[in-house]
C-alpha cells in the first residue's frame, strides 16, 4: 500500500477505509479506565536551550499495548519518546517541566537516577546500532554488566528467539554483528533491549531505515511481544501505526507569533478512532494525507 500524499485524488472516505482494512485483526480495546497505566504524563514541556521543542503534552500510556506516536517531521515525536527514559538528559542544555509518572513515581525528578530509569525502560533507535562485538556479545554484554549472569546463554537464546532472529544466527553467534543485514541488526538491537527484561520498550522509528520485508518482521514482533512488554513506537509511517498500534497519539507543529515553532499533542485515542473518526480537523487532514 502506498502512502497517500498531498494532492492525491483519493477521497477521504476511501483512504480511511484503507486504513481500517489493514486493521481487521484488531480486537476491541477494553474501556480506558480498565487499562493499567504505565505512564501518566501531565503538561510535559521539553526545551532545548531556549527553544521549546514540545509544549504541554498530557497523556497516559497503557500496559501491554502498543502506543504509536505519529506526526509530521519536527513535531517533537522523538523528543517526547526520549523524555520517557531520560535519554534527553544526555543533550546539553535540555530541560523539561511537567510531571512524568511511571507506575505512579515521578521519574523526571532530580533525585531519580536516569540510569535506573533506562534500566527498566529500554530503547531501540532509528538506525540499527549494534555494538562492534559478536552477535552473542551484543546481547550478553548488557546482561553481564547489569549482573544478570546466571544462565547467560539461555537468556541470550531466549532474547534472540523472541526477536525472531535465533534461527538466522544460531550458527554464527561468534561472528561480528556488523556482518548482519540492516533488518537483522535492528532485530538484534531489539533482542539486546529485551534481554535485560525491561518493562517498557521505546522505539524511535525502528523501521525507517529498513526495507519492507524487514519492516514487516519488526511489526510482527510487536504483535507477538506486547503480551510481555509495553511498547511506545514513534513512526512517521501512518500505515505502520495503523497496523501495529492499539493507541495512537497525533502530534503536530504549532507556530507562535514570532516565527517560533514547537510540537504539541493534538489528539490521543484508540488507533481505530484516530484513523476512522478523528475528532480534530488537523488529525483528519494528516491521516488522510492532506497534510504532512
Amino acid at each position, binding site marked *: 500500500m502506498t502512502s497517500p500524499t498531498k494532492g492525491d485524488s483519493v477521497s477521504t472516505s476511501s483512504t480511511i477505509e484503507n486504513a481500517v482494512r489493514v486493521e481487521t485483526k484488531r480486537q476491541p480495546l477494553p474501556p480506558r479506565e480498565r487499562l493499567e497505566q504505565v505512564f501518566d504524563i501531565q503538561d510535559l514541556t521539553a526545551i532545548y536551550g531556549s527553544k521549546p521543542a514540545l509544549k504541554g503534552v498530557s497523556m497516559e500510556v497503557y500496559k501491554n499495548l502498543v502506543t504509536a506516536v505519529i506526526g509530521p517531521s519536527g513535531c517533537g515525536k522523538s523528543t517526547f519518546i526520549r523524555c520517557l527514559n531520560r535519554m534527553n538528559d544526555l543533550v546539553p542544555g535540555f530541560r523539561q517541566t511537567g510531571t512524568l509518572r511511571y507506575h505512579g513515581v515521578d521519574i523526571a525528578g532530580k533525585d531519580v537516577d536516569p540510569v535506573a530509569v533506562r*534500566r527498566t525502560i529500554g530503547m531501540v533507535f532509528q538506525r540499527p*546500532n549494534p555494538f562492534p562485538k559478536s552477535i552473542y556479545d551484543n546481547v550478553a554484554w*548488557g546482561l553481564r*554488566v547489569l549482573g544478570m549472569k546466571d544462565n547467560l546463554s539461555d537468556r541470550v537464546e531466549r532474547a534472540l528467539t523472541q526477536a525472531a532472529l535465533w534461527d538466522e544466527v544460531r550458527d554464527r553467534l561468534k561472528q561480528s554483528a556488523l556482518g548482519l543485514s540492516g533488518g537483522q541488526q535492528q532485530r538484534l538491537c531489539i533482542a539486546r533491549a529485551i534481554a535485560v527484561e525491561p518493562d517498557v520498550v521505546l522505539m524511535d522509528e525502528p523501521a525507517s531505515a529498513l526495507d519492507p520485508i524487514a519492516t514487516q518482521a519488526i511489526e510482527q514482533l510487536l504483535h507477538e511481544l506486547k503480551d510481555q512488554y509495553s511498547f511506545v513506537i514513534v513512526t512517521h509511517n501512518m500505515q505502520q501505526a495503523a497496523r501495529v498500534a492499539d493507541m495512537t497519539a497525533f502530534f503536530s507543529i504549532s507556530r507562535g507569533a514570532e516565527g517560533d515553532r514547537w510540537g504539541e499533542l493534538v489528539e490521543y485515542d484508540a488507533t481505530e478512532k484516530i484513523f476512522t473518526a478523528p475528532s480534530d480537523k488537523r488529525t483528519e487532514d494528516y491521516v488522510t494525507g492532506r497534510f504532512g
Partner: protein
Amino acid sequence: MSAAELSALQRPNDRLRRRRIANRAMELLAWLAAAIAVALLAIVVWSVAKRGASALNIDLFTKTPSALAGFVPNVQQGLANAFVGSIVIVGIATLIALPIGILVAIYVNEFAPRKIRSGINLVLDVLNGIPAIVIGIFVFGLIVVTRGQSALAGSFALSVLMLPLVSRATIEVLALVPSSLREASLGLGVPRWRTTLGIVLPQTIGGIVTGAVLAVARVAGETAPLLFTSSLVSNQIEWNPTHPLYSVPLAIYELSEQDSSADHALAWAGAFVLLMFILVTSLTARWLANRSRRKLTGASR
C-alpha cells in the same frame, strides 16, 4: 551562442592568459615547497648517516663512550649506556603520561560540560606550547634541587611534554566514536563509566596507541629537560632509574663538544639511530592511525 562568442573562446584574450600564467606559477611554487620539504629530510638523513658511518657498527650498541677516544687510534666505543638510559627514561615517562593523558581525554570527551571541555583543551594547547627547557628548569626546581638528579626526574619532565600529545590524540579518536553506540549502551541502563570502558574505549585503542607512539617519538629526542635532570652520569650501562642515566640526545650533545673526530662520529651515529627510530615510529603510528580510522568509520568490514 553566436559565432563571434565562440571564436572568442578559441582566441584567449590577455586577461585569460594572465590568469593561466598565475595559476601555473602558484602550482609550481606549491610543488617547489613540497619538494624542498622532502629534500630537506633526505639531506638530513643522508648527511647524518655519512658522518656517523665510521661509528655505525656493533660496538655502538654494546660498548660505552671511552675516555681514550682522541688519544688512542681505533678505540672501540659505543653508546650502549645512552640507549639503555633513553629506553628507561622514555619508558617510565610513557608509563606516567599514558594513563593520565587517556583519563584527561575521557573526562574531556565523555563527562565534562562544554565550558570545562574548551577550558581543558586550551590548557592542553598551552602545555603543548611550553618550551622543553622551561619544563626542564621547572622539574629542576621541583625535584632536582632537593633530591638530586635521577632518571625518574628526567622521566617526569618528559611525561609533562607527552601528556598534551597523548590527550589530544585520544580526544580526537574518542570524538570519532559514533554517539549512537554510547546511546545504545546507555539506553540499556548501563552507567556511563561502564559504557566508556566497555564500548567506547575498545573502539579507540588503535588511535590511542598512535598518539602514544607519536609522543614517544617526539620526546625521545628531547635534550633540554634531561640536561637539568639526568646529566651527571657514569660511563657504565645502568638500568636503575633512581640514578641519573645517560640518554641518546644528551650523548649527541656532549660528544659533539669533544675535540676528537672519533667522538664526533659517535655523536653522528647516535643521531642516525635516533632519526631512524623516530622515522620508524612515525610510520608505525601512521599505519596504526589509518587502520583504526578504517575500523571506526566502517570502511572495511
